[in-house]
């Protein structure tokens, strides 16, 4: 239990390090990417090159991914600040966001499924 906790802390620290490296890389190279996505791609490159073994980050990374949804709760609470705008034109905005999300989800989902089936034939 305690050992597991320490492993999570240590491996999260390693992930944090690569996250900061990603941010640094974006700044130096002026990439059109946020630091976290750059960090993800960097970590993928490190895994693919065999520099980082999956075992180095599996416990901590697995824990963070299992609870990935958690991080979006405090962020979503921030929507509270838009109460006045929501009362004024919330329904219109909601309808627009729902419609565009539906279009996007269907476009990607059906496109991938269609191309996949063709590819398998």
């Amino acid at each position, binding site marked *: 239990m305690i050992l597991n906790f320490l492993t999570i802390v240590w491996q999260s620290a390693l992930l944090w390090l690569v996250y900061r490296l990603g941010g640094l890389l974006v700044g130096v190279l002026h990439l059109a990417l946020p630091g976290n996505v750059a960090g993800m791609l960097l970590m993928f490159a490190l895994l693919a090159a065999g520099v980082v073994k999956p075992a180095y980050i599996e416990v901590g990374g697995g824990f963070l*991914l299992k609870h990935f949804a958690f991080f979006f709760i405090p962020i979503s609470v921030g929507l*509270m600040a838009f109460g006045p705008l929501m009362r004024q034109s919330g329904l219109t905005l909601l309808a627009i966001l729902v419609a565009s999300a539906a279009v996007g989800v269907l476009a*990607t989902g059906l496109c991938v*499924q269609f191309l996949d089936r063709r*590819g398998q034939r």
Partner: protein
Amino acid sequence: MTALIFAACLILTVGSYLATRAIFLRFRHPLLNPVFLSTLVIIAVLQATGGTLADYQPAKELMTFLLGPATVALALPLYHNRAVLLSQALPVLAGVLTGSLATIAAVLVAGRLAGLSRGILVSLGPKSVTVPIAVEISRLAGGEPTLTAAFVVATGMIGSILGPLLLTAVRVKDPVARGLALGTVSHGQGTAVALLEGERAGAMGGVAMAIAAVFTALIAPYYLPLLLP
């Protein structure tokens, strides 16, 4: 007192999360989305007790500290699914690009039909990509970054509730297609739901989120003006 509020916000958030997660895992219905339910509970408690966002802020900062490292951890399912990614590179790329173009066009056309001002339309444009990029796109195009951030979060929530329902309704069952659709439209929040569906869907959510972010940033200066009044 401040320490007490801080602790109360932490306990409230973690408690709501654990409770709503347990409910979701028991019934597995997209409407029981843990982020959605917990957010409702927390906002209700804040309002009932006269709490403000400023009271919640310190706890928020601590709780979101690990979001960066968690996003980096998405490299792990990506790595485990690299064979799928390579063998289906074309559908993956085509799907994400189509979805990004479609959702931007839809939001701007619907917004124009509803008679929204240009400032709000510009702020809506990049709403499907992850916050740091969306905010930057909005600022460069003359939108309102804070408004864009709110639209991004709202879209994250909407897509992660509606997305799985819609995909099931049109019989998209393949985890690759589902993960890509959720990540393209609802960035990290969609990826979180995809991860709840399984590792492969989660990996694809991460891929889609990254491709959509880069692609949208690249095309926005040319694509948005085409659709704006």
